[in-house]
């Protein structure tokens, strides 16, 4: 690896480290972005529609209007992320040109390529990608992702898939840690991940990059649950601005991620938050409505 590449990697995985213990919130306009920042979000995700609305509207979901992203960048001092479609490297180039601090190559948007993800090493801007298991996480890291998140099931307000994906990744990490060395090559082939990254996971006992929870988190308790399952932080999409009192809920979720193992504090901050987003059980979704199945 040349020096320029390793510096870029240090800066990009480093920015992800600065998000740890924090909450990244979906916002659709400058006003929501300011509410998120005021509540203590460590970054915002700028997009035209939150996943719950993408789900409700149907049709093709694409990258947001760059003007709208710029508007949000101008409104807040915290980092601004934006989403491009899986495999749509031109949308990613546009987001990079706009100056987004992080790009989410996201299954929440309609995939542009059903075979290949973006070669993320080719960009100066860091990427975050979703995963359901260790193999998927390591494939994205091999492509250059500086940060990983669970896919969960976005726009449902149902945390069950995020829990499943977090536990499945942890399970993979445990296997890599404890299996005899001679089994590792076969294990890497089985999960479809490069051996050198499997070896790195074995040594570190965790993913080599920051790993957030995402997809279905709607309450402070959901956020704390994901932290107790070993996640480094939390994305909240529809859960905040589809709830009865967004500012209050946003504040409570930020506190829940910091004080995730303090049940007394969690009880206090969970009081009187108003209505949570109404939600839809992930289990009730047909295969064609599940976003987590997009990407590989």
């Amino acid at each position: 690896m040349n020096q320029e590449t390793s510096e870029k990697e240090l800066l990009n995985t480093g920015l992800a480290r600065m998000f740890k213990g924090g909450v990244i919130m979906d916002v659709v306009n400058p006003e929501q972005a300011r509410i998120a920042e005021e509540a203590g979000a460590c970054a915002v995700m700028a997009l035209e529609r939150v996943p719950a609305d993408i789900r409700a509207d149907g049709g093709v979901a694409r990258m947001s209007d760059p003007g709208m992203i710029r508007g949000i960048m101008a409104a807040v001092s915290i980092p601004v992320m934006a989403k491009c479609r899986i495999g749509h490297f031109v949308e990613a180039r546009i987001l990079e040109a706009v100056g987004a601090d992080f790009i989410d190559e996201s299954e929440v948007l309609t995939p542009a390529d059903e075979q290949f993800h973006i070669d993320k090493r080719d960009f100066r801007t860091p990427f975050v990608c979703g995963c359901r298991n260790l193999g998927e996480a390591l494939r994205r890291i091999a492509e250059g992702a500086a940060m990983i998140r669970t896919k969960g099931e976005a726009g449902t307000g149902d945390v069950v898939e995020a829990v499943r994906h977090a536990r499945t990744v942890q399970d993979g990490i445990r296997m890599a840690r404890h299996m005899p060395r001679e089994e590792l090559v076969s294990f890497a082939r089985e999960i479809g991940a490069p051996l050198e990254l499997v070896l790195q996971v074995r040594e570190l006992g965790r993913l080599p990059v920051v790993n957030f929870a995402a997809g279905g988190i709607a309450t402070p308790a959901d956020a704390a649950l994901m932290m107790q399952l070993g996640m480094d932080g939390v994305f909240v999409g529809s859960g905040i601005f589809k709830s009865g009192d967004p500012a209050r809920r946003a504040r409570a979720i930020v506190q829940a991620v910091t004080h995730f193992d303090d049940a007394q504090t969690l009880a206090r901050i969970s009081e009187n938050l108003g209505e949570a987003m109404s939600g839809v059980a992930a289990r009730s979704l047909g295969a064609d409505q599940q976003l987590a199945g997009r990407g590989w």
Partner: protein
Amino acid sequence: MRIGILALQGAFAEHSAMLSSLGVRPCLVRTPQGLAGLDGLIMPGGESTSMRRLAGHSGLLEPLREFGMSRPVWGVCAGLILLAARVEGEEPFTGLMDMTVARNAYGRQRDSFVAELQVSGLPGGFFAGVFIRAPRVVEAGPGVEVLAHSGGAPAALRQGRLLATAFHPELTKDDRMHRYFLNLCGSREALPESL
């Protein structure tokens, strides 16, 4: 020696690992009670607005300010902002160090950079300064010693027992800045210089 790391949000685990490798047991601080009995405190990088809000909710602002008036504190990046007496465009937080800071003054993530720094008081040559959406110190008061510059702006500063860096030593394998801070925490001679 007991060194605390403010663990509200951000890269506290990285400092924790660095201190452990130097044989110091780190204490994660999330409440005012967590400051009791500490010989020094690191305020890590992360988002300064997140940390300010969380510190406010936990009643940590006054305890942090009092702590910093009598004991060593090291602010890194966002932590440097929390130390500053003046922050452009917003209210200062602890206001402990006599300097003026501009947030995100180097630009967005695409403008983040690594620079070789000559840090006075550090043995052994250049230090790789990792600047990530870094704050820029635009003015340092007369009682503040500038230990390193980058691009004409102070990048490492010291005022008595207070230390501030705009870059992230915890993201490198170089533990010299951490050793420097531990010396500050252990040394008696640092005491009279402080305000």
